[in-house]
């Protein structure tokens, strides 16, 4: 069964490749995603195709399993090895499970990188993070400050008091707080990523701090609940809700005016950058700590000791682009 599946997939991939036989000298870069049919990854593919068009001699093979399983991805990777692609850029369903298959790929000279969701160090040349904690920490306070030219009180609505991601981001935010004159972080409250608790905590903030000008919620549940609470309290225009959220979830609140802008990584840029880095590696660039790899219009990425790099600032969404991205993810 498994063999039959692999054979079928191999056949499918080879057919796809034969269709493009005319461009035989094209570099083949495979973009392997967690599963097909997910808006976020379809958008990443859009970016990868953009990179291919820009580079000219690249053909992007967008592929992945139908469900988000490591086994499915291993089959896909094996068939890609059989097809002798030049590079594989994978967003992994499992950190460790893909390593043997990816090692095999690297043994055959295929350049392997991971992006979005990484694989263990042994299984890839480098990993591309969408952003980094310092960049995110800076972005969330910048979003609040940008709409407050005269400064003012802002509060943070986080997830749980113990959630690692949010705590690191808030810590990074506090480090750069001094760069934003007049921005006064008055409180950090925890909505536990529950809609009702986040809503209640927001109401509490509104009551406790009558001069509150902005709420920073670096969590997708919190930002939506806070925006709703601000709308219900009739504070639209007075309190701006910002932070990290998904365009599809925030579109209504941007329209209602409770959130002027928010941020999250841009999947299009991510797919674009991954493709560009893979191309750079095929071209002979070496992935080692301290190396800088080229990402086309996104600039370049510097690798740390683990051969990991951060793409860019989180992408900002506001009334001008949120509708468009809401259709994607």
């Amino acid at each position, binding site marked *: 069964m498994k063999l039959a599946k692999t054979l079928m997939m191999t056949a499918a991939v080879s057919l796809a490749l034969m269709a493009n036989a005319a461009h035989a000298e094209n570099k083949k870069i495979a973009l392997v995603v967690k599963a097909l049919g997910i808006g976020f990854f379809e958008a990443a593919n859009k970016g990868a195709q953009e990179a291919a068009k820009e580079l000219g001699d690249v053909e992007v093979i967008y592929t992945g399993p139908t469900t988000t399983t490591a086994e499915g991805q291993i089959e896909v990777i094996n068939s890609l090895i059989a097809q002798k692609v030049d590079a594989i850029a994978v967003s992994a369903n499992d950190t460790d499970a893909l390593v043997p298959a990816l090692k095999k790929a690297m043994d055959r000279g295929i350049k392997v990188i991971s992006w979005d969701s990484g694989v263990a160090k042994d299984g890839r040349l480098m990993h591309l993070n969408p952003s980094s904690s310092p960049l995110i920490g800076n972005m969330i306070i910048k979003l609040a400050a940008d709409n407050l030219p005269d400064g003012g009180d802002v509060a943070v609505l986080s997830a749980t008091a113990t959630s690692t991601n949010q705590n690191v981001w808030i810590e990074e935010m506090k480090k750069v707080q001094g760069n934003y004159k007049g921005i006064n972080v008055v409180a950090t409250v925890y909505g536990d990523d*529950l809609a009702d608790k986040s809503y209640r905590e927001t109401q*509490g903030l509104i009551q*406790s701090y009558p001069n509150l000008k902005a709420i920073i919620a670096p969590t997708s549940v919190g930002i*939506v*609940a806070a925006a709703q609470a601000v709308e*219900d309290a009739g504070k639209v225009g007075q309190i701006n809700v910002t932070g990290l959220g998904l365009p599809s*979830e925030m579109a*209504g609140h941007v329209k209602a005016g409770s959130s002027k802008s928010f941020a999250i990584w841009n999947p299009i840029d991510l797919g674009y950058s991954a493709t560009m880095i893979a191309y750079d590696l095929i071209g002979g660039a070496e992935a080692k700590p301290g190396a800088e790899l080229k990402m086309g219009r996104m600039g370049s990425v510097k690798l740390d000791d683990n051969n990991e790099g951060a793409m860019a600032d989180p992408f900002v969404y506001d009334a001008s682009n949120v509708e468009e991205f809401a259709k994607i993810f």
Partner: protein
Amino acid sequence: MMKILMKNRELLLVVAIAALLVLITLRFPAFIEPANLARVYNDTSILIILALGQMAVIMTRCIDLSMAANLALCGMVVAMINSVAPGVPVPALVLLALLLGAFLGSINGLLIWKLEIPPIVVTLGTLTIYRGTIFLLSGGAWINAHQMSDAFKALPRATLAGLPVLSWLSVLMIALIYIVMTRTPLGRAFHAVGGNPHAAVYTGIDVGRTRFAAYCLSGALAGLSGYLWVSRYAVAYVDIANGFELDIIAACVIGGISIAGGIGSVPGAVLGALFLGVIKNALPVINISPFAQMAISGTVIIIAVAVNARAEKRKGRVILKKAEAH
């Protein structure tokens, strides 16, 4: 004085809530303002409605762990319908949520009635099934504010004589359930089945059918709350109200409804829910660490239950002594 308080659980709760309000006001004076109290009541409305349903179930010596999952499923279904067909009138959706909730509750009831599976097992099972069903229906996707029609979100927020419809709905439910519990054969049956199932059978009450009715009632109220929840928070996803079943049960227990069945009242359930609601709304404004918040919530629940347990125990002793005297 203390004795009267101990005997009258509702009065004790009223005093406890008043004391709580005084304490909160010392730290945050604006809390006691009528507008804020109305806001707290409104925020607690959903918990009150759910506690009424849970009360009926607990009275019959059962428990309904699936209420929050039922709420989430009904909420997701009406939100999905609203997002694909915004033209469907909101009252029809509310009715649908009620009926779907009652249906989901009746599954619990049937399994407990006909197959005689312990209620805690049945509802633990359906809890997971209902949550899983939401995932199957939605594919894990959220229904967001902009996908819901304005009318869908407006109903619980519309104000009537100074209070939001959400508050009025809970008042209406309290009145309805109060009448059912005190003025109808069904309400009497709830008391009888929980108080002494064997005696209830001798008086001609079908224990299984009564429990089935209790589950239908709790299901219907959970379904109604499902609509109220998703429209109030303007978002529906798999995990909404996750863990809320524990709040509902806590409200009932604080309100003096005996887990052993048979004892309880509508005012008790309402006051229990209000007690929790006041705490939930006060903690964010009195500015204490989130870790202390959890500890405080837990301690308060245990104290309340301990007081209730003492009151219950004393009552038991009195009856036994009388029986010995005869």
